[in-house]
């Protein structure tokens, strides 16, 4: 079995009204961007709880992008302003705790900026690729899964456990 080349896993939390639509535009304009990025659509950048970020890192994300509407463009008027302050704190906290700069990146991408979305995603992917796998968090993960393996049930066992429950 040949070893697969490592590819960075990027999770992007994008707001429904701007960046997601921007990504859509990138698609309809047939622009190419790295497939490493997994988009998660949320209603507003102000609605992204920093716990989402931690959870994504826990589940093996190597890099995370948070993106929303430009200031003053928010569909809910002030969501991104609130988000901006919060991310400022969260970013400096993570940096202080030793999570490398560039693992978590932020951007404003509007609905008409398909090209910018491509640029941003490419930049994040290249940055994370240059940094390599998120080793520090991966070790935590491996330790955890070794200690508390997630139960993997096959079909038969699932049927059995359901019968037991009855």
């Amino acid at each position, binding site marked *: 079995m040949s070893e697969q080349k490592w590819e960075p896993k990027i999770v992007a939390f994008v707001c429904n009204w701007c960046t997601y639509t921007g990504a859509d535009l990138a698609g309809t304009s047939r622009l190419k961007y790295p497939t490493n990025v997994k988009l998660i659509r949320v209603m507003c950048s102000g609605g992204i709880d920093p716990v989402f970020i931690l959870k994504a890192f826990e589940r093996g994300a190597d890099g995370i992008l948070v993106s929303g509407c430009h200031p003053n463009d928010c569909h809910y008027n002030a969501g991104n*302003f609130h988000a901006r*302050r919060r991310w*400022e704190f*969260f970013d400096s*906290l993570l940096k202080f705790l*030793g999570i490398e700069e560039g693992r978590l990146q932020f951007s404003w991408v509007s609905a008409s900026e398909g090209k910018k979305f491509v640029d941003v995603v490419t930049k994040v992917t290249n940055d994370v690729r240059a940094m390599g796998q998120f080793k520090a968090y991966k070790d935590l993960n491996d330790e*955890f899964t070794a200690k508390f393996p997630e139960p993997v049930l096959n079909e038969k066992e699932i049927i059995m456990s359901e019968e037991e429950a009855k």
Partner: protein
Amino acid sequence: MDKLRKYATELLQKGEVAAVIGYQQISEKRTKPIIAKTAEDCTKLVFNEYCLNNLAVYLTKARVKELRRMNGTVLKLAITAKPCDVHSVIALIQENQLKREDVHIISFNCAGVVKDFGMEFDGETLATKCIPCETHKPLYSDAIFGEEKETPKVSDEVLAKIDAIEKMNAGERFEYFKTEFDKCIKCYACRAACPLCYCQRCITDKTIPRWVESSAHSRGNFSWNVVRAFHLSGRCIGCGECERACPMDIPLSLLNRKMVIEAKEAYSYVSGRNLETPTLVGSFDVKDSDELFM
């Protein structure tokens, strides 16, 4: 001391307050909180350098709030608070958890407290939170007791430690905090002791989905400590109760202090200092820095 006791008794007898949250001496160098509801309880009230607890934590507890309902009316609660605890009360008022007219603040001129019970109060044993403290007189109060005293001068270890950590590279920092957080046993004493951790239902208690793992494993420990520090950033007033409550001696004040510095530098805001200003994370300014965003 007598003045304080007399004042508290009068407050109770006049029917102005339902109870006085205060400190009582239980041995020579140890106090514990008391919720004084009768004149007899009031004779136990003390204030000295062994009054370590931040009593503001009780103000948001449902059972203490219940005490305010008396004979069909809702009375005030009186609290004896060090000047730093007054910050907590102000922060609670800023965050709409309390109304200023609902709480009667009895405060003191404070020259600092000891690190832990049983210690002699001298320069060496000054609590870490008292070292950078600038408010030896309460900012808001309804009554002030005690004489003004000189605070011992001690070098600021926490600040030095923050500087040292900032000089490390990312990997070393992560390793340092991982080892520190590894000690965590998830007892949530830090949460219980914090006057600003007043959520009815904490995010760590939510199980569907479980955001923060409940097992005391380093992965969940990391999440919990990040979440705790983040939820207090821009809000922490630096009373240091979390660190004192921590049975595993995790340097929580490092994180809190760092975030306080961050808020001060970026927004020149310190939590719990002014009743008029809105909270930092609850408000925004269109002119906030946009540096972080591409």
